């Protein structure tokens, strides 16, 4: 709305508008801009949340691997479904991830070399997971191993443990 003009053609200032420093039009535009802004941010938040799935059909993070007697002393057993090595030393058991810490390829236990090797970019690890050579930035991850009440070993890949930690059986 334009203000009425006086006889010289200049606009007569609206006293109410001058006092508050804004007009009805400004007020409505600001309210609309704010409402659109809130709706915009809201839809981004809702969409981002939507993109992240709540149910995943992935292998379980903890699994039974049978009784300790299945694993001879001084052996490295690769479990292909879970992509972990079960290592039994005279001290006890530990489970370590077979996924290379460089870029996620599956490593392979080489008994003749007594090391774990990655085919993708040539990283080499000692049996207990320390990096021997290649681009891998970290040693292989060790997972917690427990004994269930009925005598099975249980690996929990969500619980990452120190390299020195072994399960004595």
């Amino acid at each position: 709305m334009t203000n009425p003009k006086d006889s010289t053609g200049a606009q007569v200032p609206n006293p109410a508008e001058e006092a508050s420093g804004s007009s009805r039009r400004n007020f409505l535009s600001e309210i609309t801009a704010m409402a659109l802004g809130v709706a915009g941010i809201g839809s981004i938040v809702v969409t981002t949340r939507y993109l992240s799935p709540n149910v995943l059909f992935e292998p379980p993070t903890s699994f039974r691997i049978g009784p300790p007697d299945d694993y001879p002393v001084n052996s490295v057993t690769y479990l292909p479904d879970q992509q972990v090595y079960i290592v039994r030393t005279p001290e006890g058991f530990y489970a370590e991830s077979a996924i290379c810490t460089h870029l996620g390829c599956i490593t392979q236990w080489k008994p003749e070399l007594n090391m774990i090797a990655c085919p993708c970019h040539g990283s080499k690890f000692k049996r207990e997971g320390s990096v021997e050579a290649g681009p891998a930035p970290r040693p292989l991850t060790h997972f917690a191993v427990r004994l269930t009440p009925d005598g099975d070993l249980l690996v929990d890949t969500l619980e990452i443990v120190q390299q020195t930690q072994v399960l004595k059986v």
Partner: protein
Amino acid sequence: MIMNSAQRALDQLRSTRVWKSIFRRGPARTNRTRSLAVFGNLFLHVLPVKVRDKSLRVRATYYLGSFSFFLFLLLSVTGILLMLYYHPAVPQAYRDMKDLRFVVSNGVFLRNLHRFGAEAMVIAVFWHMFHVFYRGGYKPPHQFNWVVGVGLLLITLFLSYTGYLLPWDQLAFWAITVGTNIISYVPLLGQPMRFLLLGGHQIGENALLRFYVLHVVILPLAAVMLIAIHLWRVQKDGGLTVKEDHEREK
């Protein structure tokens, strides 16, 4: 004789009501009507009405931009045809890819056209970029179009990368494993970004579907938008960067 009758037939066609309702003008015989033909066409209006004949010489551009655009069209057409036989699901995707190679009539031809076309497009886009760079095409007034071009280069690479997973073979699986693990090295946002891209912690059905949607909908749409802006800006920025004759002699 044949030319004359063809010309007569064309003139007759141009005088029909249907033709006139679509094109709204007669034959483009004068500069004015030629300009109007470009202005008044949705597809042509992004192109300049006039170009310097220097910029049409092969050595001015080697038609690298046009070649990239042609490959984009080729990949769109072959890609749509491949979609008719491809299911983005595990393990059907791998079987569909094998079917396309060994069972579907001319499937191997279309698949190879798509695949090698994609590799050619990456090469063409890079070559185009180097050529524009050495011609100084990134300098004012072309600086914004250079940025659009960098966006198109990235989209080309993302298209190439997302398409790489779709055959769902060992090569695809491990390439995407390595690639998405590179993403997880981004500070703070790396892991969430990888999770959103894969739709999980591992490369599985969700990841295949997400890469498929990116590859066939989101990235091509973004590419079409940026290509339109890219071509239109060539005209708005005053034509291609061409070497003047006196520069050529140096």
